[in-house]
């Protein structure tokens, strides 16, 4: 394993560090590939291109990577004419062959003599002959879709071999979604990554963003919930940009900002566009600090009715579980006297008792599309049943998506309607409890001797809980959007876009009369508990825009868009619960049947809050000579969330691009097919804070006794007001390079960025006195990040039957807390990432001003005393006992130090795609490197001070500890890992049937192997995003003690169209 790991990492590192060597090396390797995988001519449509060479021929010589003249073949083609003699004075007939990028003869290539009349075209096999008057004549070869080449005719002594390379322009003309419109790829001047269906992950997404994991350099998608179907993903682009504001990119689905991901099914998504830098994202103003992900769904196309089905079945198996003592080992340890525990006689595998071994998930999507040039449609229906690896952990959903496009009024009017809805049902009861089960005494039955459930007030009987409680969600999410666009005169269009999105759910939970809660609760013993809650979230958008596109002169083209945006968002909810149900008949369906309504311990709550966002925005794109591009954006936006004095702000951006390869001086640099430099600057904001954060809000303070003996509610202010509260502002500069090299075999982009977020929104201590409350929500401090992102795509082999593509996404970011103070408010450090567990170990991360985000701050382990007590180093490097450690807040006194960093320095993923005839194989590797994780499982359960079941390592690796839990670098481990994340093997059938257009079946394995030195749980599940605030999805750098198990899944899928 280690060897493989070394080799793979070595390969990856090579990729990263040494581009010139890399290219040369790869070219050498491909030479042999080309040799062995020559084309099979018999299956080729011979009217277009015919291979000219056989394996033994000299044509196998590859393109000279340095762009010089191609080596001349040593032997002439057997069936070609020999070197032509001169048939007139000065006149020579030059012969040769034109080859395409696959070394196949190109027919129909036009040949001109520069500055002279006369010409020729190549024949079927790419051969040509042309008569020139002087060896200095320059022959110009041109062919649509290929870059022209000019070659001196020479004296005709040997046939010429002309290699034409495809012009990159085809790809460059592809449309990129940029927000409020599209641009051609060549016009893009900001850092935008596009991922389309062909690149999506194929292991069956639980969340649509799963499709993107590892596909975009700089975009981190972390699944701390593993394969739990009810868990979300953590997303972060280019590092942390905020302390308390929104950390996740803005999701825009078909133009609806803040689009609900539940509405997206993987088979309905056409592409993702990730606006990475401020110069592109500024068009989304206040919500763009963390980046923007634009999702485009599939649309109807003109043509006969098409039906497409895709579906899969998936099953999950355990990949890895924490190494706790099995019941046999537990007994053995008791017997041998190593472990002073009770043997209660039962033999359980408590972990396994939570596992849903029968799990089988499935997804089915059927879409219909078609229409005429004037009207087209696409509709899809989706059914998905995700069964978790845990019991009572499931999500079932049905959805529909509809798209309708019409043109009218001489094609000047274009309308589009999208409708989407999703109904889902979630079983939220299970999925947790792993830590309880792993640590419980495996000899203790779940039952008492009399057959009743065994309950312990200090631990939940997880098995009983699954039987005696329910917790379900029923949800419906819908969106409707419509757009009408009218071309008032050529190039000038006016359009209106409107969207409504609505998300609602009803939760219900019940705990049986006989359950543990019933016995242990404080309010009413031996009675059932029931609760219900509902939430309704709605948002409304209206966006009228005007668009103008024109060209003037030969060299200038201009497009401009201006618009207004109004968005209103309102959330409301209601919850109620009761206790003391005397039987389980009604569950949560008749809350009145409990007995605490009259007794006063039933509960009831409701809420409503809203916000409005209004913006004016514009974007101008100017192109000069098809090689200089300029883009300017301005958005002026106001949000109700901010203070009265700072509701509005401007977000400008400007960026430029230069296609270097369009310049004259690049004409002869043959190995560069396309090269573009981009430079952009943009300002964006963050308004992802709670509604009303700038206002004094009234809260309740609990009931209080009045003189008449009655208890009544009290009210008071529960926040300090801040009329100056404003946006967090991010300024970002991005330098990018897009390139296509070596006959378009290698393409990619490199981006360098530097960003600073100022006026960080956070709750700061307010001086007390004179203020009433200890904190105020305000803008102080700044966070910065700089980084490099590299995306490469390399066609290692591009034969007719065999293709091998390598795609690489890599990024590195340095993220710092520059300051956390201003003249009024001061903090020296940010303390975060609570360790949790017993013994209240406090926070694991402390970032002093100027320090790196994710810095672990703690004691440095120095060994153990003879009797197993901890020793740590003081600041002078002397080992001392724990109680002598100086943990002062002052850095010149403290013994604590930075002991690691929780944020991977390098993210890398590599997709290897192989195609052989109808077979396809894709191997996806993903890794995070150079960072640390706090192994809390070892900290808590690798120490015999705990009387629970323990890790095996408590008796070997950690056997000498005879002291309480301590946080120090002893448990900070290298988290680097490389994962064989996904392997897909597919077969595309060739069917003669007229009815079936295409059919592909595939099998995908996910999470097949992880190579790491980390000894805790799956390092991939440890949160690597955010600052470390505790959240539902974990804490930065702190491994969970009982995370959702790491599973490998196997998926069998099929897609066919008819």
């Amino acid at each position, binding site marked *: 394993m280690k060897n493989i790991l070394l080799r793979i990492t070595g390969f990856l590192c090579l990729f990263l560090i040494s581009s010139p060597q890399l290219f040369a090396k790869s070219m050498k390797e491909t030479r042999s590939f080309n040799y062995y995988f020559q084309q099979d001519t018999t299956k080729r449509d011979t009217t277009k291109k015919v291979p000219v060479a056989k394996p033994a021929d000299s044509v196998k010589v590859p393109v000279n990577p340095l762009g010089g003249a191609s080596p001349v073949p040593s032997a002439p083609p057997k069936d070609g004419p020999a070197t032509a003699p001169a048939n007139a004075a000065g006149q020579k007939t030059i012969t040769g062959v034109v080859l395409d990028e696959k070394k196949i003869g190109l027919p129909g290539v036009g040949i001109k003599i520069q500055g002279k009349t006369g010409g020729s075209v190549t024949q079927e096999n790419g051969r040509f002959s042309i008569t020139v008057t002087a060896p200095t004549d320059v022959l110009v070869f041109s062919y649509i879709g290929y870059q022209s080449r000019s070659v001196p005719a020479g004296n005709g002594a040997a046939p010429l071999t002309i290699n034409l390379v495809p012009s990159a322009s085809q790809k460059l003309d592809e449309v990129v979604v940029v927000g409020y419109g599209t641009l051609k790829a060549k016009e893009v001047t900001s850092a935008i990554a596009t991922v389309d269906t062909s690149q999506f992950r194929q292991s069956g997404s639980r969340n649509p963003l799963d499709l993107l994991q590892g596909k975009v350099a700089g975009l981190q998608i972390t699944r701390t919930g593993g394969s739990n179907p009810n868990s979300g993903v953590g997303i972060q682009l280019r590092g942390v940009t905020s302390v308390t504001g929104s950390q996740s990119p803005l999701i825009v689905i078909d133009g609806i900002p803040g689009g609900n991901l539940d509405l997206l099914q993987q088979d309905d998504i056409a592409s993702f566009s990730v606006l990475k830098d401020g110069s592109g994202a500024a068009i989304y103003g206040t919500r763009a600090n963390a980046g923007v992900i634009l999702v485009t769904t599939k649309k109807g196309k003109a043509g006969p009715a098409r039906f497409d089905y895709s579906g899969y079945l998936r099953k999950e198996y355990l990949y890895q579980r924490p190494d706790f003592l099995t019941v046999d080992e537990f007994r053995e340890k008791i017997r041998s006297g190593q472990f*002073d*525990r*009770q043997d*209660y006689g039962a033999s359980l595998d408590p972990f396994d008792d939570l596992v849903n071994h029968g799990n089988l998930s499935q997804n089915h999507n059927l879409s219909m599309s078609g229409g005429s040039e004037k009207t087209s449609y696409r509709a899809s229906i989706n059914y998905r049943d995700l069964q978790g690896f845990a019991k009572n952990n499931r999500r079932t959903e049905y959805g529909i998506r509809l798209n309708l496009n019409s043109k009218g009024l001489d094609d000047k009017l274009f309308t589009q309607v999208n409708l989407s809805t999703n109904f889902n049902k979630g079983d939220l009861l299970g999925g947790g409890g792993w830590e309880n089960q792993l*640590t*419980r*005494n495996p000899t203790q039955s779940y039952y008492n001797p009399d057959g009743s459930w065994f309950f*312990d*007030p*200090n*631990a939940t009987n997880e098995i009983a809980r699954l039987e005696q409680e329910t917790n379900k969600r029923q949800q419906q999410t819908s969106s409707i959007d419509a757009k009408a666009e009218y071309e008032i005169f050529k190039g000038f269009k006016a359009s209106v876009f409107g969207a409504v999105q609505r998300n609602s759910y009803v939760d219900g939970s019940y705990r049986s009369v006989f359950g543990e809660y019933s016995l*242990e*609760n*404080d309010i009413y*013993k031996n009675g059932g508990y029931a609760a219900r809650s509902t939430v309704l979230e709605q948002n409304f958008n209206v966006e009228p825009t005007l668009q103008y596109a024109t060209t003037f002169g030969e060299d200038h083209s201009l497009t401009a868009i201006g618009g207004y945006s109004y968005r209103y968002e309102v959330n409301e909810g209601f919850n109620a619960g009761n206790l003391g149900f005397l039987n389980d008949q009604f569950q949560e369906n008749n809350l009145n049947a409990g007995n605490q309504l009259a007794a*006063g*311990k039933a509960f009831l709550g409701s809420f409503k809050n809203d916000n409005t966002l209004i913006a004016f925005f514009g974007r101008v794109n100017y192109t000069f000579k098809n090689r200089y591009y300029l883009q300017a954006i301005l958005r002026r936006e106001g949000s109700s969330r901010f203070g009265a004095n700072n509701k509005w702000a401007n977000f400008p951006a400007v960026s430029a691009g230069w296609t270097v390869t369009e310049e004259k001086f690049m004409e002869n640099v043959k190995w560069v097919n396309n090269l573009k430099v981009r430079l952009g600057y943009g300002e964006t904001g963050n308004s992802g804070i709670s509604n009303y954060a700038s206002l004094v809000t009234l809260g309740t303070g*609990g*009931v*209080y*006794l009045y*003189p008449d*003996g009655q*208890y009544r509610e009290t009210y*008071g*202010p529960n926040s300090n007001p801040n009329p100056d509260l404003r946006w967090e502002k991010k300024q970002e500069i991005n330098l990018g390079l897009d390139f296509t090299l070596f006959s378009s075999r290698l393409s990619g982009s490199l981006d360098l960025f530097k960003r600073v977020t100022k006026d960080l929104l956070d709750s700061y*201590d*307010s*001086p*007390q*006195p*004179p*203020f*009433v*409350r*200890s904190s105020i929500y305000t803008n102080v401090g700044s966070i910065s990040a700089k980084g490099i992102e590299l995306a490469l795509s390399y066609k290692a082999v591009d034969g007719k039957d065999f293709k091998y593509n390598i795609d690489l996404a890599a990024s590195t970011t340095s993220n710092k807390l520059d300051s956390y103070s201003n003249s009024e*408010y*001061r*903090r020296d450090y940010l303390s975060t990432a609570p360790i949790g567990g*017993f*013994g*209240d*170990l*406090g926070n694991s991360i402390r970032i002093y001003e100027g320090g790196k985000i994710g810095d672990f701050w703690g004691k440095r382990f120095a060994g153990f005393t003879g009797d197993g007590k901890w020793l740590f180093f003081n600041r002078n490097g002397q080992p001392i006992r*724990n*109680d002598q*450690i100086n*943990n*002062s*807040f002052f850095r010149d006194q403290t013994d604590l130090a930075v002991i690691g960093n929780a944020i991977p320095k390098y993210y890398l993923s590599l997709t290897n795609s192989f195609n052989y005839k109808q077979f396809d194989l894709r191997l996806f590797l993903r890794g995070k490197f150079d960072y640390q994780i706090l192994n809390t499982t070892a900290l*808590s359960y690798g*120490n015999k*001070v*705990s*009387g*629970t079941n323990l890790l095996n390592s408590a008796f070997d690796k950690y056997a000498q500890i005879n*002291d*309480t*839990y*301590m946080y120090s670098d002893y448990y900070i481990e290298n988290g680097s890992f490389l994962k064989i994340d996904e392997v897909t093997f597919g077969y595309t059938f060739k069917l003669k049937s007229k009815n079936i257009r295409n059919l592909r079946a595939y099998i995908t394995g996910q999470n097949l192997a992880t190579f790491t030195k980390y000894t805790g749980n799956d390092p991939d599940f440890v949160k690597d995003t955010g600052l470390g605030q505790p959240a539902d999805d974990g804490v930065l750098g702190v491994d969970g003690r009982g995370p959702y198990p790491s599973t490998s899944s196997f998926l069998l899928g099929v897609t066919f169209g008819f």
Partner: protein
Amino acid sequence: MAWPTKGRHGEDGGKWKRLHYHTWTVDEGGINSAWSLMYWGVGLCNVPIENLEKRDAAQLGITQQEKDAFLAELKLFRAYHYLKLMDLFGNIPVVTVVGEPARPSTLSRTEVFNFIEKEIKDNIDKAPKLSKAMLGRMSQAGGYAMLVELYLNAQAWTGTARWDDCIAAADKLITNQAGGMNGNMALDPNITDQFKPDNDLSKETIFSVAYEFQRANFQPGFPSDFYHFNQQFIYGGSRNGNDGIVVIPDNFTKYKDADLRKRTWLLEGKMTRFDNGQPLIATGGNEYDGKQLEFVDNIRKNKTGSTVSNMSEGEENSGVRFNKYKLGNQVANATTQPSTVYNNTDWNIYRLTWIYFAKAEALMRKNGGTATAEAVQLINDCKVRAFATADWPANQYTVASLTLDELLVERGREFIFEGFRRDDLIRFGKFATGSWWDHQPTNANRQLYPIPQQQIALNSNLKQNPGY
């Protein structure tokens, strides 16, 4: 009391050890929390005082007298917060208007003392007398209790003794001139009425936090700090704790066996279940998992036979436990029905017994440290409740036996868990010089807590206390 590390529990970043060893730091979170909490209280008084003062009584629908009474009550309550802040931090800023000044300066402890004294004296007569309707609220009785505290500690706090003022203020309460919670203010006849779930019926309550779970869902906060993980089975309720604060070794034995307080207020030995009298088996994966829970009067790892006793070496059952305030029982047993007032227990801030002790001490100090007959009578009036009639003669104090040192020990027995020990030790000059269990003498500057570094960072007009 202390919160030692017990096995895997209670290390808590070493904060309990620093508290116990008096090695706390200037940025100790708990110290800042205390500051922040009390000044929050000050702010919550300042807001309505400002509000009420600028409004006309008639507008509010109350009489001028009622308005004055509300204001007086609020000012007394504000003075209470300043009293506690001055006790902990000594030199502090005094602010009576929200937001002004923006960065208030430190006043000396004597200036703060004078402010508090004046506020109380100016307002006490306008405030309502104590009555059942004033449960949980500040009253004239509370005001006099504050004066007693202020004067009893005046010498320690300002250098000027105020024993006569202390006696005069105490007499207002002892002679029932400031009202009573349940009829005339008087000592309760036993050692349980003050601490039972319906202790709002106690006759000696002066000022309390009026918890009321049954009607107001407002429950006492102490279980989390004092209770064992399985405590609910001991008293037949539902609330457990973090197995935190315990009595440090050798205090349990300071109570004689005949002293009813020993077994009524403390838990020691093998524990049994309330509901069926069976042994209480510990659960939860700690040292004594699966065995009968037994609290011991030592803090060491008995399980491994260790004799090392310090703050780091506790285990699950270390230390005698708190059982002074009772929550009542939720479940029935053979002799007792479930309590209808379960979990309603109020927390006394001042009770009359404490006033008796304060007056007795003032009399003794005025008398050169020797007891007077009146002082002995005051203490005996309290102590007699803790003994059976037959045991009393052997345990009552005389002028000879009630020395100041003995008074300090008796205060420890009577007021254990009630939050006065730090002041007592400072007043008796033992806080910085004394040793107890594994605690060694520290520096005199530790008699004040540091002004939290977190606050100094925000307000440069604050001055750090000496020695920090």
